[in-house]
């Protein structure tokens, strides 16, 4: 198939399996985010795709060409490192033209392309600036321009925005996404920030412990997480135990209209705080006491104690229920917006 394909890729360091038997397919032109907590193996995976590290098992291929053992400099990639790795001894233009220079392009060609790329990243005329005199955001853009100089077939970024402040980060996320759409280049970004992943990616790949937990679109990951790790890692969620009582499911002490998969006696229900509705206490709804209310301005959080289990509900200010700390309420959960998880 066309695109990037990983089959059974593993990377062991002694007894530690940093990456464990990963299968992945990234069609051409897609924007993919490798998302996970630190130590989950996402950077190791990216480095293997780049050729900076070699898998201890498995194969990596691009457009049906096996590149598993191919040295980095032959892979025709563009990569942005976490530290940006801008050459301190070259100017902005020198950095961007590097790939062109070592391929023997003429000075005029190099200059032309450099200007083209600077325009692309909104830094026109910066070619002669020394790298040390740039701001964080500007350095970021130079690193991006440099990576794209030879129109590579793969664009890899390792936590590219982690050094930027919050506002700039959010702006850059949008810009990166727009850039990728404009160029149509296959892009893989490693990040630990789930909002970043949700903003930029076509496909989010959640990793933990060297394995892929789920690979799907941001919306699907959010609405239908594959396991409790993903549910908890993306956004915030309530994870409530479901027990079996005969052939019925029991939730928060009350029978629930849920179907447990066959043969499963224990499961977890994931329901997002915005899908928890507070009503007046009722006999056929689970009951809880309000323990804490947090008014965040744009949203109101209610912390509830349902017989020992904490449940969090979130509403907008307009739909705010009239409850105070200490009140007893009923909890209504929308079955279409909650997910039963067996892992």
């Amino acid at each position, binding site marked *: 198939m066309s695109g990037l394909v990983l089959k059974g890729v593993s990377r062991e360091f002694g007894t530690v399996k940093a990456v464990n038997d990963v299968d992945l397919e990234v069609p051409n032109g897609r924007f993919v985010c490798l998302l996970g907590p630190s130590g989950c193996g996402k950077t190791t995976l990216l480095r293997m795709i*780049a050729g900076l590290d070699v898998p201890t098992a498995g194969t990596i291929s691009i457009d049906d060409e096996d590149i598993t053992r191919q040295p980095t400099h032959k892979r025709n990639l563009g990569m942005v490192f*976490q530290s940006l*790795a801008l050459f301190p*001894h070259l100017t902005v233009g020198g950095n961007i033209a*590097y790939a062109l220079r*070592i391929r023997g392009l003429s000075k005029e060609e190099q200059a032309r392309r450099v200007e083209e790329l600077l325009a692309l990243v909104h830094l026109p005329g910066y070619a002669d600036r020394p790298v040390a005199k740039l701001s964080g955001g500007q350095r970021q853009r130079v690193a991006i321009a*440099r990576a794209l100089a030879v129109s590579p077939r793969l664009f890899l970024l390792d936590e590219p925005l982690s050094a930027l402040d919050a506002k700039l980060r959010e702006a850059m996320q949008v810009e990166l996404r727009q850039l990728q759409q404009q160029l149509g280049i296959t892009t893989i970004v490693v990040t630990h920030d789930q909002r970043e992943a949700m903003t930029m990616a076509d496909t989010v790949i959640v990793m933990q412990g060297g394995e892929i937990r789920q690979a799907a679109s941001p919306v699907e990951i959010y609405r239908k997480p594959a396991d409790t790790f993903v549910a908890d890692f993306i956004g915030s969620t309530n994870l409530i135990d479901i027990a079996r009582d005969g052939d019925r499911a029991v939730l928060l002490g009350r029978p629930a209209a849920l179907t447990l998969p066959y043969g499963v006696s224990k499961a977890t229900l994931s329901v997002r705080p915005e899908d928890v509705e507070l009503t007046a206490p009722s006999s056929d709804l689970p009951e809880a006491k309000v323990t804490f209310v947090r008014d965040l301005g744009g949203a109101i959080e209610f912390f509830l104690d349902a017989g020992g289990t904490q449940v969090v509900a979130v509403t907008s200010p307009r739909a705010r229920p009239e409850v105070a700390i200490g009140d007893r309420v009923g909890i209504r959960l929308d079955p279409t917006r909650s997910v039963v998880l067996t892992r």
Partner: protein
Amino acid sequence: MGRLLSRLYLALVGIFLAAPIVVVTGVSFNEKQNLAFPPQGFSLHWFAEIFVNPEWLRALVASVLLAVTSAALAVAIALPLAWFLWRRVAPWAQVFQLLGVAPFTLPPVITALGFLTFWATSGFYGQAWTAVIAHAIFFVTLPLVTLTLGFSSIDRSLTEAAATMGADDRTVFRTVVLPLILPYVVSGYAFAFVLSLNEYIVAYMTIGFVRETLPIKVFNALRYGYTPTMAAVSVLFVAVTAAVFGLIARFGDLPRLMGAMSSKD
């Protein structure tokens, strides 16, 4: 109060360090051929003497030639070694690093003696190039230390970035590593050069009977006849060294070369 004490201390030590230079400079201005201090009379002709008197000129040329060549050889030994240790995983090569540091840590007379016995036994004693090799080995520590420092300060992700952009090993070395390591090559060379210029005993034991370098001549002059020329020589050397390192400071980052972290951002 603390500031005052600090300044005072720096000033005192500064005076201590400067005093000999003041003496030497003063002596070099003596009119007559004696080493009176404070100087009697004022004359600059001893400075000219270095270049006019054939004996002193010969010694000067010998010293400069020795310094230029041995410093170059020292760098030629240190650079590949330092690069190899940085580029490859090679615990066994650390032995060579130890060997590179050893000559300088031993008392010079030991090294001098070692070379003396070596050249005497091998029959090459007295040839000019024996001093070049002796000095190069003796001073190889300096470029080795500066280059090791330099390599360790290179961010490896720079080489990785270059590789992702299509540079093979040789290109990475040529376009990324070499430009970044150049200041350290220069400072290592400068150190070895300056120290070779003033080194006495190793030079003496290897070629002292055949050829005189300036330090040898100065010492002999001290023993057998005083002239202010030797003071003039010292002033000249100090001035040259100050100029060399001043230039390095002007065009480079001297504190960084001496071990500070980068002062930029």
